[in-house]
């Protein structure tokens, strides 16, 4: 492990988080297909599609839904390359890695034997691997499209109108807000560490660095929560939460919802 690469890996995760936030802000403002629809329709519609992908049993139907997802992505002005790097390659790496042994391990009728070994790929193994990878890819594509086209506020408002308890929605909102603040604080702590680094840290020192950074973060978090509570009280918070929801359904939203529903039901029916 190269010098301080654990810090670098962590910092990279931080950068990804911020870039994700920027990308979805941009995506939400594009004049595309999904952006055209009410966020509630988007959330529920995508949820239906994902559930249908999980329910149907035929590879061909899952593939068809995947094709539909790609069409929606393009129509919503999303870059396919972005999807490829964020979803497709990543899922292939993980799910593909997990599914690989299944080719050989799943009991069933062998259709191909690796030359030079007695490892046989069974028909069932092939099908299960394909089905798994395709399902994971399609579901991940659908959720990523939703998240890249919808601003966080709208996701929250959609969840609220789906009757998620108001305290939970408030906590989601506040958590999201403070994730970025904490990432900034942690980044600053790591950066100052890196610039002062003269030579490699020994194992126990590395762990101590992580623990200390986490510790400072924790203390600041609790202090922050206390101050935030006072700030909320100061502006009239009394235990109940009130948020402004300005969403209204139009004809296109009903049509969109109908489309999502019918495709999902069709997929489940054909793929049963």
């Amino acid at each position, binding site marked *: *492990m190269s010098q301080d690469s*654990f810090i670098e*890996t*962590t910092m990279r*995760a*931080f950068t990804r*988080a911020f870039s*994700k936030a920027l990308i*979805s802000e941009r995506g939400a403002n594009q004049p595309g297909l999904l952006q055209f629809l009410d966020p509630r329709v988007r959330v529920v519609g995508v*949820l239906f599609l*994902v*559930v249908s992908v*999980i329910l149907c*049993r035929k590879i061909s139907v899952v593939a068809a839904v995947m094709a539909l997802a790609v069409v929606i992505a393009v129509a919503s002005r999303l870059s396919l390359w972005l999807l490829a790097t964020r979803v497709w390659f990543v*899922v292939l790496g993980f*799910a593909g890695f997990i599914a690989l042994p*299944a080719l050989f*391990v*799943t009991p069933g009728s062998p259709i191909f034997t690796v030359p030079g070994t007695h490892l046989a790929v069974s*028909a*069932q193994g092939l099908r299960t691997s394909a*089905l*798994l990878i395709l*399902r*994971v890819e*399609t*579901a*991940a594509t659908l*959720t*990523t499209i939703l*998240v890249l086209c919808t601003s966080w506020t709208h*996701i929250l408002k959609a969840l609220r109108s789906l009757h998620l308890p108001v*305290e*939970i929605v408030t*906590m*989601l909102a*506040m*958590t*999201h*807000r*403070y*994730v970025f*603040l*904490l*990432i900034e604080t*942690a980044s600053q702590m790591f950066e100052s560490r890196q610039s002062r680094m003269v030579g490699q840290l020994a*194992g126990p020192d590395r*762990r*101590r660095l992580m*623990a*200390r950074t*986490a*510790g400072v973060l*924790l*203390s600041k*978090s*609790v202090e922050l*929560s*206390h101050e935030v509570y006072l700030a909320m009280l100061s502006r009239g918070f*009394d235990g109940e939460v009130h948020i402004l929801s300005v969403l209204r359904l139009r004809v296109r939203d009903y049509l969109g919802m109908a489309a999502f529903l019918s495709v999902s039901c069709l997929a489940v029916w054909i793929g049963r």
Partner: protein
Amino acid sequence: MHIPDGYLSPSTCATLYALAASGWYSALGRVRRMLASRTIPLISVFAAFSFVVMMFNIPLPGGTTGHAIGVTVAAIVLGPSGSILAVSIALGIQALFFGDGGITTLGANCFNMAIIGSVVADAVYRLTAGHSEVHSRRRVWAAAIAGYASINAAALLTAFEFGIQPTLFHDASGTPLYAPYPLHIAIPAMMIGHLTFAGLAEAVISAGLVSYLQRSDIGLLHGVRATTGVPALESASSPLRLWWVIGILMLCTPLGVLATGTAWGEWSAADFANPEKRAKIEASSGQHAAPSSVPARLQKLSAIWTAPFPGYAPRFVKSTTFGYALSAMFGVGLLIMAGLVLSRFTKKARASESPS
């Protein structure tokens, strides 16, 4: 161990969502009853903290790195109910904002990591820390052990959820429809990674945090009481914990399917007549010769009661594993009901005794 969409069948997802929902509901109820206004910002910030900790690449003894969840420290500082909510919210943000981790499997992930993780972390920490001083070394070790235990409990549960998929959900030709590996592959495969890396990472970060708090902010270790003037979110004894321990035990019972053979002493009358079975009985009984025919009394007794679920599976359930799980839940359910009825009676008896 964040499960993406596609690995679990719809019915598994639905069951785990239901279990998670009951955990959320009870945690939310508990938190609402205790100074709800202060806890909204506290839990939110803790959720944010947990989220950021999940990104940390933690160096481990041996030169490798791993990722932690932060559930152990959340459970120590906020108590299990607060921790359930905080970690669930962190997982929710991961799925809904970052698109990492599935939405059909959010219930499963929350159940495994946030709920069971919190309960195990809290129980093991309290057990191991005992009545030791808040600034003692023992607490640091307790945190490490609790962290290790909670991650591995969550991982075991995840592995179990993966492992039952091929048995329960396959098509006519035997192709698994979801996660393709049965229990005897899934469990070792998952546990190896967590017993070594993830478990250690959580242990390291939990111990490190408790040690840091002991030096700088000891109030937090009392359960957020002293610093902010907020009473600890959880009281010392919690019935919630008992329920969840029962729940875990219930879910672990089908692991018994892995054990082959019959438990000692649990032979049926028919076993004695079967020469093969009799040989096994002898082998496990220190080579004492077994009677060649069923002892007469045993025969009489066994005729009195025919269990509704002989062989631990209702007749209509074909799969052994599922039947096992079902009967375990039914059995525990009966026990719980019996317990409740008993406690109700004793309460009434006590109430009628004393006028107050």
